[in-house]
């Protein structure tokens, strides 16, 4: 065994981990090698010096101090205690605080028009209709037919110009319309107004599918009693035959600032067919005919295959009539009758076209009234046509 090998075994020898031949070999080497023997002695002294350091004890009270530390709550425990303890005091206070904040928020919302307006566009577009429903509504065209082409854009500009100048009441030259609503008729008309308002609300709140619109419209047109239809069609509408008094002529109310802002907000959004139609109905409800005409024309142009197009044309024509724009109204009524000959709205459209013509002094209206009475004897408009013939076409 070399000296290096013997010294490499010092650690094991010190731990008495050597036995057998290795132990004998190392022992023999140490006995024969004074240098290794001195190294071994030095090794043992060094290890003994290390071991002599011994176990030390901490200062008195160490365990008690550890216990004190253990009993100090941790940071998370302190946060929980600070937040919730004692439970029976802090939790009720926090609950009351939350309620107060919620109540304050609600009050702020209710008393701040800006907040309400900001949130309204994101709700279903029903609230304005519901609010405005009691105001007079233009003739409900939902149940009526017609024919004629939609007026092009330039025509709209012309009609605006026409609207700008004071209207010469063409109807003034015409005899008072036989359907001019008496007080009794107005009374009868109010239920129909409510009905119309409901319909508007329905249309605005739930943008219905074309099928729903069709199904909700047709049964009424077919099964309604003549009187009811007349009430629904005539009283509320400023039809050409109602010949509004000059003082009542500027029927179209200037939109309120709120309504104008609402319109700006809604026009800023992408406008689908349902939105356009709902907006038009709302505008009709608030007698904002210019806007209604704009929305209806946009609806017809953008959705020519929509099943609500006949209805939209009727409403468009009625809006023109409300503005005494009889020529444009006649075109729309004609479009309904021409483009949708099978629609139940056709007799209504023909009857109203006749009234519009009479309002313009065109005696062709009388012939149209006869046609209505002859071709649609079962339609409510037949009776109305006969009555008009007897009073205006003698």
């Amino acid at each position: 065994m070399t000296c290096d090998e013997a010294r490499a075994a010092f650690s094991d020898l010190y731990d008495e981990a050597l036995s057998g031949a290795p132990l004998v070999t190392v022992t023999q080497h140490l006995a024969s090698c004074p240098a290794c023997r001195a190294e071994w002695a030095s090794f043992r002294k060094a290890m003994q010096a290390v071991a002599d350091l011994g176990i030390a004890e901490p200062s008195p009270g160490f365990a008690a101090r550890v216990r004190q530390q253990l009993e100090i709550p941790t940071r998370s425990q302190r946060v929980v205690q600070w937040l919730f303890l004692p439970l029976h005091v802090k939790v009720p206070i926090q609950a009351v605080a939350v309620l107060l904040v919620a109540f304050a928020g609600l009050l702020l919302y209710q008393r701040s028009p800006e907040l309400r307006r900001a949130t309204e566009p994101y709700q279903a577009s029903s609230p304005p209709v519901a609010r405005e429903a009691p105001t007079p509504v233009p003739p409900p065209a939902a149940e009526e037919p017609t024919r004629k082409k939609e007026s092009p854009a330039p025509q709209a500009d012309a009609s605006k110009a026409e609207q700008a100048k004071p209207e010469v009441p063409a109807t003034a030259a015409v005899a008072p319309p036989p359907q001019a609503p008496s007080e009794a008729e107005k009374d009868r008309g109010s239920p129909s107004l409510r009905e119309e308002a409901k319909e508007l609300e329905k249309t605005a709140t739930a943008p219905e599918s074309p099928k729903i619109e069709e199904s909700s419209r047709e049964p009424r047109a077919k099964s309604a009693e003549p009187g009811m239809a007349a009430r629904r069609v005539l009283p509320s509408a400023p039809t050409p035959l109602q010949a509004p008094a000059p003082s009542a002529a500027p029927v179209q109310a200037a939109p309120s600032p709120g309504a104008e802002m609402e319109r700006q907000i809604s026009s800023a959004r992408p406008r689908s067919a349902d939105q356009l139609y709902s907006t038009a109905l709302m505008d009709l409800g608030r007698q904002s005919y210019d806007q209604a005409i704009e929305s209806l024309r946009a609806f017809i142009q953008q959705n020519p295959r929509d099943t609500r197009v006949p209805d939209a044309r009727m409403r468009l024509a009625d809006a023109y009539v409300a503005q005494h724009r009889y020529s444009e109204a006649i075109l729309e009524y004609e479009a309904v009758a021409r483009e949708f000959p099978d629609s139940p709205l056709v007799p209504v459209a023909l009857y109203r076209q006749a009234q519009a013509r009479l309002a313009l002094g065109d005696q062709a209206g009388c012939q149209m009234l006869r046609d209505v009475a002859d071709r649609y004897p079962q339609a409510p408009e037949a009776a109305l046509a006969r009555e008009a013939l007897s009073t205006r076409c003698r």
Partner: protein
Amino acid sequence: MSEAEVPASLPATAVSPPAAATGEQDRALVDQARAGDVGAFEMLVRRHQGWVFTLALRMLGDRAEAEDMAQEIFLKAYRGLKRFKGASRFSTWLYAIASHHCLNQLEARRRRPLQHGWAGGRPDHAENDPPAVVDRLADQAPRADVLLERTDLQRIVQTELANLTAEHRIILVLRDIQGLSYEEIAQTLGLELGTVRSRLHRARMEMKARLTPHL
């Protein structure tokens, strides 16, 4: 020598481990402490404080710092009691926590030399010393004036102990001061038996070389 030949017995010079006196009593106290009995844990602290404090003291070289570290170790053990499954003795589990805590703290201090500085102003550890020297954790040099060692030799031993690497120092302390067996050291430090044996041999030879001029 094969690993099978490594003895679990202790040399005559080693101090008997306190773990030998533990066992069922420790287990009962642990159960009580787990149930929230802080007093039971205080008893455990009393039973093991000498061992834990000695380890901290020999690793740090300073009594005050050693007491702080021992306190941290016991707090750590208390918060980790729920994770103690009882597969090993409580003492073994506690010693593992203590050893790793010491090594981690020393490593953390080594990485913050500017905050702790060179405690003893040792001339052989200037700022530009090579990393190998820095790795010897010279910043952990003992403050001899605060060591309450009984003899000059003990102060020298403590000083030279601090000049060992942390790995060598802790294995020397665990074996030659705390008196753990090879198996216990392997379990405490998470090392193989062969690694324990070879590392211990290197640590002892280095310590012997350092102490020989003073003996």
